[in-house]
């Protein structure tokens, strides 16, 4: 988990709070920049191909299946579909705070702060429940 950000030097066990702060700050910024870059690429593909079509957002129909599940979105992005690319970027964006929580589990483990290990694992499970729980009726 701590090799998530390749540019990060691996600190010794027993990180100080300040070291954890710096890693979290870099993690958040890296995730955000990556996500925005992927969305911009997707936007360029999408607008160049579909820019002159008509759209209607006034009636809610819900997105098609291909934009509702993580696996399907990645397939669409792999085909260089603009909308699929944008969705992949948005997934990356949603994954950024989740990666931060996952990193916090490791950080609190190294600090042997077990109350917070438990609290963080709980938050991580709530997030996993939301992202992977298929709310299809």
């Amino acid at each position, binding site marked *: 988990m701590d090799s998530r950000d390749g540019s990060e030097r691996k600190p010794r066990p027993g990180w100080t709070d*300040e070291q*954890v*702060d*710096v890693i*979290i*700050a870099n993690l*958040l*910024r890296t995730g*955000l920049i990556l*996500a*925005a870059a992927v*969305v*911009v690429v*997707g*936007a360029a593909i*999408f*607008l160049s191909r*579909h*820019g*002159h079509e*008509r*759209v209607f*957002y*006034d009636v*809610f*129909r*819900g*997105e098609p299946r291909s*934009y*509702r*599940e993580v696996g399907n979105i990645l397939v669409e992005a792999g085909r260089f579909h603009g*909308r*699929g690319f*944008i*969705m992949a970027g*948005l997934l990356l*964006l*949603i*994954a*950024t*705070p*989740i990666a931060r*929580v996952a990193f*916090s589990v490791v950080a609190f483990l190294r600090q042997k*702060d077990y*109350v*917070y290990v438990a*609290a*963080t694992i*709980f*938050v991580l499970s*709530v*997030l996993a*429940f*939301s*992202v*992977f*729980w298929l*709310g*299809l009726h």
Partner: protein
Amino acid sequence: MSVILITLIVLGASLGAGFLGALTGLGGGVVIVPFLTIVLGVDIHYAIGASLVSVIATSSGAASAYVKEGFSNIRVGMFLEIGTTLGAIAGALLAAVAAPSVIAVIFGFVLMGSVFSSIRRQDESPNSLAAGPGPMAARLRMDGEYPSRRGIVRYHVRRIPGGLGLMSVAGILSGLLGIGSGALKVIAMDRVMRIPFKVSTATSNFMIGVTAASSAGIYLHRGYIDPGLTMPVMLGVLAGSVFGTRVLVKARTRWLRWLFAAVIFILGAEMIFNGFTGRI
């Protein structure tokens, strides 16, 4: 409307909203939903989906800066996220069953409430050091310190159960309305838990991303997140708020604050009116 036209309109509006939101400290995403629904006639489910995603972007950017400077209290944030993430899931599930008009009315009241809380916001909260640490906070090692012009300032944390309760409400509103609920999060820490205002603001930004991510998963599965609409909202609000934060240091924002507060207030009234008359 053609795709390119609506993308440009939404991008422009989101740039403005992100810029003013950062400059005035009132949050940008909050005006996007009324703009999309009232001005462009977008269905409220698409609007809150797009807004929620933009909230994650601005929060990650702001949190990154605050955390590095040592303002955020990560222990407090982590612990309170138990309340906000559970609340956000409940809110996202509610958004699926609640009638759009009901969501609009609640949204309007939250907008108006955030204006009032921002007007009162300037005064300092009572110093928590005199009161001493709460027993629970001491055991959870939540007391902290932050850098200021007069050197390191220490503070205690108090009344955790009350703070956690209010955070759950903030989570529900975040999941239901696709907003960050920053104002309410700050109130929970600053007013209830007696955490210094600066730390409360920084920690709130830190928590907003995780809160929003926990409802974003459900939004995604329900098909609320449209790539074509969310793209300009997310990029616009993000670029606008980054720019706004840069300008913030030199700008005199007093009159701008009042102006933006007035705009939010009017949008709030409009949402309530449209909700009651069944136009949303």
